[in-house]
């Protein structure tokens, strides 16, 4: 981090009145000052565009946009999910409806909640920035044994120009033993401002609990989106994280999952589609700490135009994590001559008796498939769109919320949702 950037962050911190605020905030700021933000010289940050940070005002936006946000501005509701909306990181009760499930407590988080997962690696430093500045957030506490498979939807709306203020979505999500929860988390923009969004999500899943977490990033075409998600799984816990990256000019997501309990299982399913001059970069680290845990990781990325789409999937198997079973399937598709795809599987294994498989490919569309479709009379544009869709389909199909999947399909492939409708006739 350049000295100028560090100084500006410190000034904005003081200007926000945070310097005399709570201790946790100050500690985060102090740690950030000592460690700095990553630069493109950092190994795991070379694909991300960090330059826009130079123009950001880090002071939190107020959550009171010039034009009021209405329900019509937001994505369509998903049945059985209770929506909680945040404008520039600040809870908007008028656009929210509480969950009827007594076992699920959702609180607006005016004061920072204690993190379940410490910010343990240098790659998580953007979470420090969030912790130093965020003024609100969602704290979700799920009682042990709660059944809430279709549960909560968080909608984070960015409305403010980065020069005026930043948006700090924050989620603290703790799931009690044996509970079953579905969480949707969306990030959108209203207006065409160049928003700066820095998001931090902290997840803990207690023993025998099962979580399906769907994240959709559809921020505006000029938005800068930084994101840090940490999760820790206890014994026999299951966590599925489905991430769909479509929006933003520059998006970076850093994920760190710790399989701390024996027989815990994580599924990371990531789709990233970039066009024009978008940059999408994901770094996903899974740490196998306990024995007999499983990881399934799938990535499907398409890069068109002059876009760059990168995915770095790293799995570390710690000493003692015997019986580890991890599978990686990372596939990138180049859909333009000026586009770039970077797909990188990494394995670090410090124990015996593990099964780790990985496959990574980056390539162009299959000419045989294209010719087959053309020979049936499909025009080139439709055929290409269909093949791109087909490339993503196996990972998108894992999204078990039909409306959400359909909304994503619609965004991805326009008229292709017609195929899904026809499918149901048979």
């Amino acid at each position: 981090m350049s000295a100028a950037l560090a100084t500006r962050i410190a000034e904005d911190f003081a200007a926000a009145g945070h310097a005399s605020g709570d201790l946790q905030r100050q500690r985060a700021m102090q740690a950030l000052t000592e460690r700095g933000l990553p630069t493109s010289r950092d190994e795991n940050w070379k694909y991300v565009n960090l330059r826009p940070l130079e123009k950001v005002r880090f002071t939190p936006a107020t959550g009171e946009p010039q034009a009021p946000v209405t329900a019509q501005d937001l994505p369509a509701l998903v049945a059985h999910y209770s929506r909680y909306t945040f404008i520039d990181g600040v809870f908007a009760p008028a656009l929210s409806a509480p969950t009827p499930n007594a076992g699920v407590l959702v609180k607006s988080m005016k004061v920072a909640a204690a993190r379940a997962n410490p910010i343990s690696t240098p790659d998580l430093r953007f979470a420090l920035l969030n912790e130093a500045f965020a003024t609100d957030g969602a704290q979700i506490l799920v009682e042990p044994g709660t059944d809430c498979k279709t549960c909560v939807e968080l909608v984070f709306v960015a409305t403010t120009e980065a020069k005026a203020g930043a948006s700090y979505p924050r989620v603290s999500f703790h799931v009690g033993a044996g509970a079953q929860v579905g969480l949707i988390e969306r990030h959108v923009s209203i207006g065409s401002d160049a928003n700066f969004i820095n998001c931090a999500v902290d997840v803990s899943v207690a023993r025998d609990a099962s979580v399906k977490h769907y994240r959709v990033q559809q921020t505006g075409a000029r938005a800068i989106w930084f994101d840090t998600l940490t999760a820790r799984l206890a014994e026999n816990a299951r966590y599925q994280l489905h991430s769909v990256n479509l929006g933003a000019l520059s998006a970076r997501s850093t994920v760190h999952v710790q399989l701390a309990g024996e027989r815990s299982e994580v599924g990371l399913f990531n789709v990233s589609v970039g066009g024009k001059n978008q940059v999408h970069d994901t770094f996903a680290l899974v740490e196998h700490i306990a024995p007999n845990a499983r990881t399934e990781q799938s990535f499907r990325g398409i890069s068109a135009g002059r876009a760059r789409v990168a995915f770095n999937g790293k799995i570390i198997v710690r000493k003692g994590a015997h019986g580890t079973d991890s599978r990686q399937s990372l596939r990138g598709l180049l859909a333009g001559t000026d586009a770039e795809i970077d797909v990188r599987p990494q394995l670090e294994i410090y124990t015996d008796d593990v099964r780790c498989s990985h496959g990574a490919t980056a390539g162009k569309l299959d000419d045989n498939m294209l010719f087959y479709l053309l020979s049936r009379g499909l025009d080139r544009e439709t055929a290409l769109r269909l093949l791109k869709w087909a490339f993503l389909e196996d990972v998108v199909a894992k999204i078990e919320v039909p409306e959400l999947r359909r909304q994503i399909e619609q965004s991805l492939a326009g008229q292709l949702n017609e195929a899904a409708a026809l499918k149901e006739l048979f």
Partner: protein
Amino acid sequence: MLKIENLHVAIGDNKVLNGLDLEIPTGEVHAIMGPNGSGKSTLAHVLAGRPGYEVTAGSVTYDGRDLLALEPEERAHEGVFLGFQYPVEIPGVNNVYLLKAALNAKRKHRGEPEVDAFEFLNLVREKMQLMKMDESFLSRGVNEGFSGGEKKRNEILQMLVLEPRLAVLDETDSGLDIDALKVVANGVNTLRSPEKSVVLVTHYQRLLDYVVPDHVHVLVRGKIARSGDRTLALELEKRGYDWVTEEAA
């Protein structure tokens, strides 16, 4: 309907077709036979417009138009259909979607409205029964995990739904057991009419027991070496290809 004159085609430096002449009148079924590597599949692909083949001389006229000037999708719109020897698997695109998109592309080209959903389903169901295909095939990915025989049936199903005027079937009989062969042959016979022509590219005469051709041509080293009626196919079955090859030399 189709007139091929002095057609020369190369794949890279390899000359595959060397002055092929062939005329297929409307309403006729012609079989193209020949040993491996004689250029049968190349001919089929060139007619459908597959990239990678260089036409170095000659012409192909379809309904009085220069077929080679058309893009593959335009050929399909004009009623040309290629049945693939190795149908391509496209996971993630389901069969019914492809069928509907293909049919609508053709209708759009003719200035007709999109097919009505129920009309379409009835049409597809009828053709599937003919091909003895289970309806579950429709919701599966295009040819995904299909057996060899299922893939070939799927090709013929597509052909029947699209009702081409010129069907070029590239070794549609290869890899089929006798029951599947009969089903496929029945499908081809259903298409047969005074307005439609069929080119059957095949290595064996077995298919011709069920789809009786009007003419049989033997391709040797990229040229028609001999033409005749269906008795030529029977003769080839008995004597093999060597004598035609030797004659051609």
